[in-house]
């Protein structure tokens, strides 16, 4: 294996991994802080991708603007779905799951109906991501994805660790009752978390749109992968999820290249075996006693 090939596989893996990390982080936040099980999270991702695609192809606008619009759309969807629906069933995971499934179905089918042909991929070829030679042939697009991903995750880190809101969020994820007794406006934080998490998913979709295929099925696909990542990383652990996301991205990249017949199946089996020996995930503590 040459250095060039290695570098390419790493870049591919990191790019995919970054996308996973963005979407997964969004869900970890929503689940861990707002305690909302949002199955429509994947559809928010899909809608972010569609938004970016349409903004650029139909309105011929700047890609950065497209990303911002995706973010705004995601935030908006998060906000209204929280305010009108999830607020009343926060904490009751089954009910949230059911409601979000309903939302997801509605969102997905609406897109399918509005943009015939149904779930055929709309290949987006937004702009040609020039393949740059930097000693090695690397895809600029993927490098940009990695860069953007790192940028956003650093922003998230800063938000969570250095700002008052972030501290409030972390407090709530540990013990929401105490947090509210300490004067933290828990409802506002739940709302903000939902906005943040959904925004993350949508912006990830926006980033992906120029590079990969945009289809109505992308929500479901990424959701399952994200679930797997969360299980490996520890469901409520953000650092664990980040590491797991990158690992899974890299695993996929190398796996597809080297092993014929490699597929998601391999990944899932690999992950399951990992789980048997370490059900906690990387950082997770979800093997609690029955209480």
């Amino acid at each position, binding site marked *: 294996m040459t250095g060039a090939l290695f570098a390419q596989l790493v870049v591919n893996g990191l790019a995919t991994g970054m996308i996973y990390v963005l979407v997964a982080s969004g869900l970890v936040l929503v689940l861990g802080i707002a305690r909302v099980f949002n199955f429509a999270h994947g559809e928010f991702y899909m809608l972010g991708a569609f938004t970016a695609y349409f903004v650029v192809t139909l309105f011929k606008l700047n890609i950065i603007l497209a990303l911002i619009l995706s973010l705004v759309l995601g935030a908006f969807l998060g906000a209204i779905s929280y305010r009108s629906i999830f607020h009343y069933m926060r904490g009751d*995971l*089954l009910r949230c799951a059911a409601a979000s499934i*309903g*939302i*997801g179905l*509605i969102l997905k*089918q609406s897109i399918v109906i509005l943009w015939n042909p149904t779930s055929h991929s709309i290949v987006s070829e937004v702009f040609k991501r020039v393949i740059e030679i930097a000693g090695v042939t690397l895809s600029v697009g993927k490098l940009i994805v990695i860069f953007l991903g790192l940028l956003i995750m650093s922003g998230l880190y800063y938000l969570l660790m250095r700002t008052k809101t972030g501290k409030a969020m972390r407090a709530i994820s540990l013990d929401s009752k105490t947090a509210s007794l300490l004067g933290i406006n828990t409802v506002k934080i739940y709302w903000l978390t939902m906005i943040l998490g959904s925004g993350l998913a949508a912006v990830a979709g926006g980033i992906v749109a120029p590079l990969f295929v945009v289809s109505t099925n992308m929500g479901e696909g990424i959701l399952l992968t994200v679930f797997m990542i969360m*299980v490996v990383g520890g469901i409520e652990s953000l650092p664990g999820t980040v590491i797991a996301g990158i690992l899974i991205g890299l695993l996929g990249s190398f796996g597809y290249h080297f092993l014929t017949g490699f597929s998601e*199946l391999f990944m899932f089996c690999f992950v399951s075996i990992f789980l048997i020996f370490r059900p906690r995930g990387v950082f997770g503590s979800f*093997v609690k006693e029955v209480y």
Partner: protein
Amino acid sequence: MLRKCISPNASIIKFIVLLIVAIVAVILPLLLQNPYYIQIIIMVVVNVMLAMGLVMLLSSGLVTLGCAAFWAVGAYASTILVMKVGLNFWYTLFLSGIIAGVIALGTGVVIVRLSKLAFTFVTIMIGTIVYLVVGRIEFFGGWGGIVGIPKPDPISLPFDVIVNFTARTSCYYLIIFLLLVNILVFYALYNSRIGRAWKAIKLNPQLAETLGINTNRYALAAYIIPAVFAGIAGSFYAHTFNVVEPDSFGFWKSIYIQVYAILGGVNFYILGPVIGSMFLTLLPEIFRVAHEIEPLITGCILLIVVIFLPGGLLSLPQYIHGSTGLEGKQNVFLRILRRKKR
């Protein structure tokens, strides 16, 4: 008016209702001449069995989103055993249940002790793995699935009657029989101290433990028993519909099973799945013309039920009589309803 029903005559009324239901169930194929309609009813019954299993696990407090996995295991196991190993369907019907049960046992032992959230996540993964296994591996037919699965062998009854299964009607009676067994077993379990233990575990697992209830063991039972019945249902499905393909057993199927349960009402262990499955299996048929609209309608109905009637459709009578106290905006709808009654 509801209060009048809950009177000394209640059990007579219950008996009469059950009798009517039984009669209808028996003569239904004769009423519906069209085999296509019979097929739909068969599918409804299969879904009822699957949803009932989910509700059993729910009654002990655990949420599974991978229930289609055991259904798939049953279907594929039966198919392979009959087509490649040459066993008789009547053996594989039960073997499939046992195989599904064994897999449930193996996975359950590990995952039952996880926190509720982790358990749910891992069931999603199990569902996905089974889906991928039957989809990717050629032995199981790959993405195209397996076609041409033989129908059940004819059975001979006393008085020289031979029942063969080429017609839908015989399959219908078979599944009704299986449903009956399922209902009886579940009813017996729910009304015993096993059912009480499940309820205790759901309401307060820590308290249940200090009262001497081995929560992990009972949760495991609530996980395995539905898996066995799902396996049996899977075997039936494979040989009645003669085709198995991975897409019928994917994540969405597990989601839909969940929806059948929630729509009917998760507190109604047997009637809930019936109502939910009927509703959601018949709905796509009504909208068969506008095939794309169906998930939209399903989503809307699900959303409305979950927001305004979290107890499911069957909890509607309770709400109208105000015996459950819900606060907040959801109750606005019900208050309006009640105001109109006055």
